[in-house]
């Protein structure tokens, strides 16, 4: 593949974010093709390991998108996920990955436009960061 757009993984919960992504399609909105969606039953299923694995596998950015607060179909899944994302952001900073490459979003299934907008904004945001995921660390670990 020869394109310079950042590679982004979007973990979406089945009930809202994934449905919003579907609606973006129904409304024929446009966003960059390098955003790849992985469906989870709920963002509560999002293991912190998946985020790290995504970066390790070559993602330039990770979107985690769940229901609106109070709207999670499993009551507290999105709240758990938000906490985990925050924790991983801290971890990323320590290992030299800009935490802005990871973001948590709440959206309802009616927000197709919002989904497309998030996909575009994250792409822009990551483009504006330095080109490589890993800013070189002085010594050792990465």
């Amino acid at each position: 593949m020869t394109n310079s757009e950042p590679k982004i993984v979007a973990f979406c919960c089945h009930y809202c974010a994934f449905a919003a992504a579907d609606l973006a399609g129904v409304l024929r909105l446009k966003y960059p093709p390098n955003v790849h969606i992985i469906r989870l039953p709920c963002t509560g299923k999002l293991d912190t390991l998946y985020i790290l694995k995504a970066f390790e596998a070559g993602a330039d950015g990770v979107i985690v998108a769940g229901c609106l607060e109070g709207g999670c179909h499993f009551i507290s899944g999105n709240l758990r996920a938000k906490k985990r994302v925050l924790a991983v952001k801290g971890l990323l900073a320590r290992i030299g990955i800009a935490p802005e490459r990871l973001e948590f979003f709440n959206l309802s299934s009616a927000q197709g436009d919002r989904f497309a907008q998030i996909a575009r904004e994250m792409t822009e945001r990551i483009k504006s960061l330095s080109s490589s995921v890993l800013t070189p660390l002085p010594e050792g670990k990465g």
Partner: protein
Amino acid sequence: MSELKHGAVAVVGGGIGGIQATLDLADSGFYVYLIEEGPAIGGRMAQLDKTFPTNDCAMCMLSPKLVEVGRHPNVQIITLASVEALEGQPGNFRITLRQRPRYVDITRCIACGRCIASCVYQDAKFPSEFDVGLGKRKPIYIPFPQAVPLAAVVDPQTCIFFKSGRCPQNCLQACERGALDFTQTERLFSLDVGAVILAPGFEPYDARLVGEYGFGRYANVLTAPQFERLLSASGPTMGKVLRPSDGKAPKKVAFIHCVGSRDLRHQSYCSAVCCMYATKEAIVAKEHDHAIEPTIFYIDLRAYGKGFESLVKRAREEHGVRYVRSMISQIIEIPETKNLLIRYRDDSGSVREEEFDLVVLAVGMRPSTKGQELARKLSIELNQHSFAQTSVFSPVMSTREGVFVTGAFTGPKDIPETVIQASAAAAAVAALLAPARGTRTQAKQYPEELVPDGSPRIGVFVCHCGSNIAGVVDVKAVAEYAKTLPGVVHAENVLYTCSQDNLKHMKDVIREKKLNRVVVASCTPRNLAALFQDTIREAGLNKFLFEMVNIREQCSWVHSDQPERATEKAKSLVRMGVAKARELKPLSVQSVRVAPAALVLGGGLSGMVAALTLADSGFETHLVEKSSELWRDLQELVCIPEGEDVQGLRAKLLRTVRTHPQIRVHTNTTVKEISGFVGNFSSVLRGPQGEERIQHGVVIVATEAYEHKPNEYLYGADARVLTQRELGRALTEGPRVRAKTIVMIQCVERNEKRPYCSRICCAEAIKNALALLQQDPNRQIYVLYREMISYSFLEDLYRRARDSGVIFIHHDEQSLPVVRKENEQIVVTVRDTRLRQEVLIKPDLVVLSTGVVPDPYNEELSRLLKVPLDAQGFFVEAHIKLRPVDCTSHGIFLCGGSHAPGTIPELIAKAQAAAGRAAIILSKGQLEAGGIVASVDQEKCTACLTCLRECPFGAVFINEQGLAEIEAVKCQGCGICAADCPAKAIQLGQFEDIQELRMLEELFHPERMSAV
């Protein structure tokens, strides 16, 4: 009576009420014809952006239900149809329907929109019904993106072909599926059904009739339903609040309450929902655009339901919504700016003027014309407001036996009340038709499952979806590519994967090529995954050996401008899907037998109604009451509606409950222990005869709420201070009340600790005041209030009280009335907001409306059942809008005051609804457990209890080995525990870590794909 009863039911009206009734019945063994006037089901709720009081997204809640109805094997949706006649008797009706042509074959249409794009009208130019005229549509259109059935429809009123006969009919050519059929004609046909449920809903009041507000003349005056569409992300402005006159963002937005309601020139009743929906719209508008300054003009603020009060508080305090108690006299448009000048009289009586950029009219609910026509055709009676006539004791029964009514057809109400009534009506039908249950439904038979041996043999089906996918993505290349992936033994292109002929073909391929995994790359799994899973199951595969890849909504439709990259993306997505498929495991679904009995806790009105409903449906019911008598204190419980024979109701209920062969009454009994889970509870009852263990499949909590006993206003210290209940008793049983001057104080001790509205006190005060005046018209009665909550038809009673001379004095929440004694004379002082001064009254009787409090026994029940109470001690429902009588823990249901205060008809409907929901489980006989559920690897578990803490459903327990285990029946499959387990001991079926990680590995590194 052994007459023939049909096991099928007609539900008329496809809004949320009709949908709920349909699902309840279809899930409990009845076949349902869901009859809808319009081209799609969903009703008014589908048009809402958010719902109060939680501001949840309406479509997020509704859409899964639409899909469920659409796919239900026991439901047939009949759109564009109306009822012509109903003959026969309960159990054995024949209903005649008239169905208008759609001109589109819904079995062929795939909602791709090509017909719409090709229509000779290049621009949409007809007002869209769904967008309340704010958006536009063409003569051929799809009602809304989530519509069920999801298919185009032709409107002959606007279609050129029908109007002039001269149209090139581009749509016919454009359709790749041959779905259009302009030869369709109207059809008249009949169906045999055992019962009918009418849920035709309401109509918003026509704002044009309230001339002084200028709707229809002033561009920037909108109705609330229109404003709702402006707020919706999928609405005409994509969720932007813009003025119709100039497309600019408004700053000052006014909401005007009671438009068409509480007004003898229009409708005398209160529409019950406007206060809250306007508050919601104000908040959501503010959230969409921070610059907006919402002002709400209201007469009384009726925040009487669960969670309403806190929404209003949030609106005021967090969102800066301004509330002005006022009477609007006129709105005038300023010609230059198209701004609107509102002239109103404020609290103190002064006339003011204020300019706004946009005005939203909170229009009330009126009985629908459809409903009135239905009533006429089915010969059921309407009340004086033209809503369906029901009685206080049978809130969902029409005046014709076997015909039930629900939702806004019976009077203005919100979504939860509608859902409760729908479940209540379904329960009543299920009881009526109990002998016919299961006679019209069929259980599908599947072949025995093949056990997948060793290595994966994956088949990949790449869909063209006509040109929807193939027009952008090089689907041939994707299928060719799929063939090169490890584990894939078959890959092909299909024109329409979902077509009947392909489904058959898929089954043949599975058998021929001995496939043991299937990947379909087509549209969203949200709609069709279940269909494909069912297909592979028919071919003998476990339905979980399936993965669906979305290359339409999430690829071709969003990347049509970049076909090459869309093709690359489709390949990546297929590669990921195949990677996951290689790791898929069959998941087993076990059937667990359901103990066919119910436990009802609480033997008051609600408990008895719930028990009777269950027993009439044929299920053994244990009715447990801790005191010595059923429904012991009549007065304690609820406001007794004027002129209703509650004594008679009680006597009748007692008689039927006591003699019912399916009911066992346990008085003087408490529950010592409850264990088990949905379908299989085991409880120990402790009664006068000692302890007894019972097995039951469901639990209904039916404790009641009681009148609060206050500490202030001299209550208990002076015999001239009574509660409303005490006065009510004195009025019916004596001693005769002699007082001449009476003060009633509303909302006594309603404070931060008891912030909720008890719903019944205003009506009770009004009723008692009227009774006092009837005894002696020369009495002086003052009612001191913060808000008069006389919602719905109670408004008529309120008006009567005012007309009869009862004086209502409004005071602020901050300046509460004071009651003191001066030389044995009681003196009440209060600051009257209208007069803006202190008023002094010397009554000889003070009556306190103290509200209701939940039964303290709830606390113990909450512990035993492991279900939560809210801060006030009421049980928490699973979902405030759509599952109002369910608990989050499956198999436990709520009614009575255990859940929230209510009036007698509300409590009866709630009890019937809870019983009906419970009967769904009992009627199944078996429950499925397993599938996408979490399980704990006992070797890895360190008993850290994280999962136990985090599971929202109480599905985790600690087993005899001291390790965590998950009750498959209770698990909802969210995966929170799996993600949180520090030892990685928990896996969620279908979403195992290895499956997810393989997808990630393959996403960007195709070359690694054969690595282990």
